[in-house]
C-alpha cells in the first residue's frame, strides 16, 4: 500500500499552494464532480468543465474519495485536481480494485489491482454555463496516462498481450441548457484500456491488432435545485479482451460490457459535494463470477475551493 501512495506529497503541495488563492468564484456545481479517473465530470465519464471553483484569472483545487461496491468487486478511489484559470486541469487518481472472489479463483487471494491515472485537460472553446443563447458547447480535450501496479496477475497480462500502462485521449463537449435546467455531455475517448485499464491496455493474443478504438460516453443531468442534480451516464467499453480470452481457452470469460449509472449529486456548499449512484458495470471477468452483472452502489465525497 505504501508504495502506491507516492503521488500524495505532490498533490498535497499543489493543494496547499492553491489554497492560498481560495477566493474563487465559479457557480455552484458548474465545476462538475470528480470522476473515478480524477478528471472533473460526472462519476464515470469526464466532462468539458474544468474542476475546482476557479474561474478566469483564478486557481482552485479539489480532492475526493470514492467507493463503489458491486456483487463481486470493490473499488476505492482517491485523487485530486487543480483547475487553472478555468482553462487547464491537472488531475491524479489512485484506484484500488479489490478482486475478492476472482482473486481467490485465480489462486491470488487478496489480489488488489492498483491503477494510477495522471490526467490533463484543456478547455479549447465555449462556456458551458454562460453561452446560453447559442448551441455552442464548452469543448475540452484531455489526456490520461494510466499505470497499473505490478501484481501476481502480470504473467496473465503478458500471456494475453496486455500492457500495464496506456494513454487515453478524449474530447468532451458539455452544454448547460440553462433555460431547461438540463446539462448534456458527450465524450469520445480513444483508448486501448480493458475495463478502464484495471485489466491492462491492449490484448494481442488471438490476433487482435494493438490499435486504439473510439468509445463514446454520454451524460445527462437535470438541475433539480441550486444544489441538487440528478442524472445518468452511459460509457461504452472496449471489449478486445474477450477475444484474447477466447484464444486462451476461456470462452467469453473475459468479456466486458458498457458501464452505466444513475446519480444524484448534492452540493450543500461551494466547498463540498456528495454524489450517490447506482452503477451497472456489466460483466467483469464473467469466468469467475458466473456471468453476473456487476451492479451496485457508488458514493463519492469531494471538497473543492
Amino acid at each position, binding site marked *: 500500500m505504501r508504495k502506491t501512495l507516492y503521488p500524495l506529497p505532490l498533490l498535497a503541495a499543489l493543494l496547499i499552494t492553491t489554497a492560498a488563492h481560495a477566493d474563487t*468564484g465559479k*457557480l455552484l456545481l458548474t465545476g462538475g464532480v470528480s470522476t473515478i479517473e480524477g478528471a472533473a465530470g460526472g462519476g464515470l465519464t469526464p466532462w468539458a468543465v474544468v474542476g475546482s471553483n476557479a474561474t478566469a484569472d483564478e486557481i482552485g483545487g479539489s480532492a475526493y474519495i470514492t467507493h463503489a461496491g458491486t456483487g463481486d468487486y470493490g473499488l476505492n478511489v482517491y485523487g485530486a485536481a487543480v483547475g487553472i484559470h478555468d482553462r487547464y486541469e491537472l488531475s491524479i487518481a489512485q484506484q484500488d480494485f479489490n478482486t475478492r472472489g476472482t482473486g481467490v479463483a485465480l489462486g491470488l487471494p487478496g489480489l488488489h489491482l492498483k491503477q494510477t491515472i495522471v490526467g490533463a485537460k484543456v478547455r479549447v472553446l465555449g462556456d458551458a454555463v454562460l453561452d446560453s*443563447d447559442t448551441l455552442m458547447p464548452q469543448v475540452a480535450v484531455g489526456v490520461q496516462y494510466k499505470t497499473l501496479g505490478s501484481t501476481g496477475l502480470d504473467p496473465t497480462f503478458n500471456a494475453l498481450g496486455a500492457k500495464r500502462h496506456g494513454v487515453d485521449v478524449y474530447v468532451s*463537449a458539455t452544454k448547460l441548457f440553462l*433555460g431547461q435546467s438540463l446539462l448534456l455531455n458527450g465524450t469520445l475517448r480513444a483508448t486501448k484500456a480493458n475495463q478502464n485499464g484495471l485489466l491492462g491496455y491492449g490484448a494481442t493474443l488471438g490476433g487482435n491488432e494493438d490499435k486504439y478504438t*473510439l468509445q463514446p460516453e454520454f451524460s445527462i443531468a437535470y438541475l433539480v435545485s441550486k444544489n441538487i442534480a440528478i442524472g445518468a451516464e452511459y460509457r461504452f467499453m472496449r471489449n478486445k479482451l474477450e477475444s484474447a480470452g477466447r484464444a486462451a481457452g476461456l470462452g467469453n470469460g473475459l468479456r466486458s460490457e458498457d458501464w452505466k449509472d444513475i446519480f444524484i449529486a448534492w452540493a450543500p456548499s461551494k466547498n463540498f459535494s456528495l454524489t450517490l449512484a447506482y452503477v451497472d458495470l456489466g460483466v467483469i471477468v464473467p469466468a469467475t463470477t458466473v456471468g453476473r452483472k456487476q451492479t451496485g452502489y457508488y458514493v463519492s465525497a469531494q471538497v473543492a475551493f
Partner: protein
Amino acid sequence: MKNLFVSLALAAGLLMAGAGSALAQTAPKDDQLYKAFGEKPGLVSLMDDFMVRLLADPRTGPHFKPANQQRVKEQLVDQLCALSGGPCVYKGADMKSSHANLDIKKSDFHALVEVLQQSMDAKGIPFRKQNEMLALLAPMNRDIITPPETAAKP
C-alpha cells in the same frame, strides 16, 4: 495520431449538434416568465432586495456603492421586464458602453449571479423560472466582463 484528433473533434461536434437543436435558448414568445416574476411590482420588489444584497456582499458591494443605485434598479427592472416578455422597453445605455473600463472579472459576474439567485430565492421564484431568466441574462457577460487585454494594468 493527427487523424485521430480530427475524427474525435468531428464526432464530438456531431454529437452536440444533434442533441442541441431541439433546445435552443430563445427569447420568450409570451409573457409567462414576466408573470412568474410578479410583473412590474414583482420586479421592483426583486430589484430592491437585489440592491440591498449587492451592497452588502463584499464581492459586489464595491462595484455598486459608487453607482446611482436608484437608477440602476430602475434600469434593471425595465431590462428584466423586456427580456421576460413584459410590456417594457429598455431605454438605458447599452451593456457594453455602460460597463467599459469598470474592470469587471468573470468571478465578479458569477458573484452577481449568485446574489441574484439569493434574491430570487427570497422572493419565492421557482428554480426553473430563475434559470429561464438567468439564461436570458447570462449572454450579457460578453459585454459586461472586461476583456483581459483591456483590463486595467496595475
